[in-house]
C-alpha cells in the first residue's frame, strides 16, 4: 500500500475509522454485527459493487463489494424484507449501505468530516469485472464477514488537498 503524505491523520486511523463505520452501520441500521477479517476473498461469481465518489479534501472512491448472496442478506437485514434475487431493491440497499459507511467513515476523521463531499451511489453488477483507478495515492481494502458470506470495503484515494 502506498502511503499518502499530505493527510494529517495516518492511514491506520483511516482503517480503524472504516472498521468502526462498518460496525456502526450494521449495528444501528440492521441490528446485526459483522466480523472484521484479515482476508476473505469473495468467492461468488456474481458480484455487486456500490461506489461512492469522494471530492474536496480527498478525491477518490469508497467501494463496497460483495457477492450476490451476501448482498441479498444485507438488504434483507436492512429492510426487514426477505430478498430472493439481486433486484432493484437489493441494489438500492447496497448503495445506501455504502453511502452510510462512507459518511460514517469520513465523519470520524477531523480532516475530512466537513471538507470531503460524497456523491450519490452508483451500483455495478456482473461477473469477473474489476474497478480501475489510475495511480491512486493510496488504496485500502478491508474485509468483513456477515451471515456466512464475505464482503469488502475499499477506499481508493486519488489525491489529497
Amino acid at each position, binding site marked *: 500500500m502506498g502511503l499518502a503524505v499530505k493527510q494529517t491523520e495516518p492511514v491506520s486511523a483511516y482503517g480503524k475509522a472504516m472498521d468502526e463505520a462498518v460496525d456502526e452501520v450494521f449495528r444501528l*441500521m440492521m441490528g446485526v454485527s459483522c466480523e472484521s477479517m484479515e482476508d476473505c476473498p469473495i468467492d461468488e461469481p456474481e458480484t455487486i459493487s456500490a461506489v461512492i465518489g469522494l471530492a474536496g479534501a480527498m478525491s477518490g472512491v469508497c467501494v463496497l463489494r460483495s457477492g450476490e448472496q451476501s448482498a441479498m442478506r444485507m438488504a434483507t437485514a436492512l429492510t426487514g424484507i426477505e430478498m430472493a434475487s439481486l433486484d432493484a431493491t437489493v441494489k438500492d440497499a447496497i448503495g445506501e449501505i455504502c453511502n452510510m459507511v462512507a*459518511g460514517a467513515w469520513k465523519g470520524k476523521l477531523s480532516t475530512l468530516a*466537513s471538507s470531503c463531499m460524497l456523491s450519490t451511489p452508483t451500483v455495478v453488477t456482473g461477473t469477473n469485472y474489476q474497478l480501475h483507478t489510475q495511480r491512486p495515492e493510496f488504496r485500502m481494502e478491508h474485509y468483513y464477514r456477515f451471515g456466512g458470506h464475505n464482503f469488502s470495503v475499499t477506499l481508493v484515494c486519488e489525491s489529497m488537498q
Partner: protein
Amino acid sequence: MSEIAALIVDDSSVMRKIVERALRQAGLAITEVYEASSGVEALDVLRQKRVDLVLSDINMPNMDGLEFLRQMRAQQLAPDVPVVMITTEGSEDHVREAIVAGAQGYIRKPFTAEQVKERVLPLVGA
C-alpha cells in the same frame, strides 16, 4: 397523540421505507406518508398536499435537500411545518447550514429509532 401526515424525501426508496418504519416505531400516529425522490418532487407534493412533518435527505440528484428546504421556505410552502434533515453528512458545518436553511432537526445516518423519537416527537407536539 394527534395524527400526522409526513413527507419523506430521499432518492433511495429503501431509505424512505426505513425512515417511515422508524417514525412508526417512535410511536408517531402516521396517517399518511407521501414520498419524494428529489427536492423537485418534494416541492410538488407540498403544493398539493397538507403535511405536518417533513424528513429529507440532503445528498440527492435533481435538487438536493438543502436547496429543497431553501425553496420550500422561500415559496412559503407549509411555512409552519417542521423539517428534519436525515443524512450521512453529519459534520457541524452541515448541521449549521441546514439550520440556517430552515431545518428544525438533524439526524445523522446511521440512526436508531430512539434517535428519531428524541428528535422528531418534540417537533410535532407528541
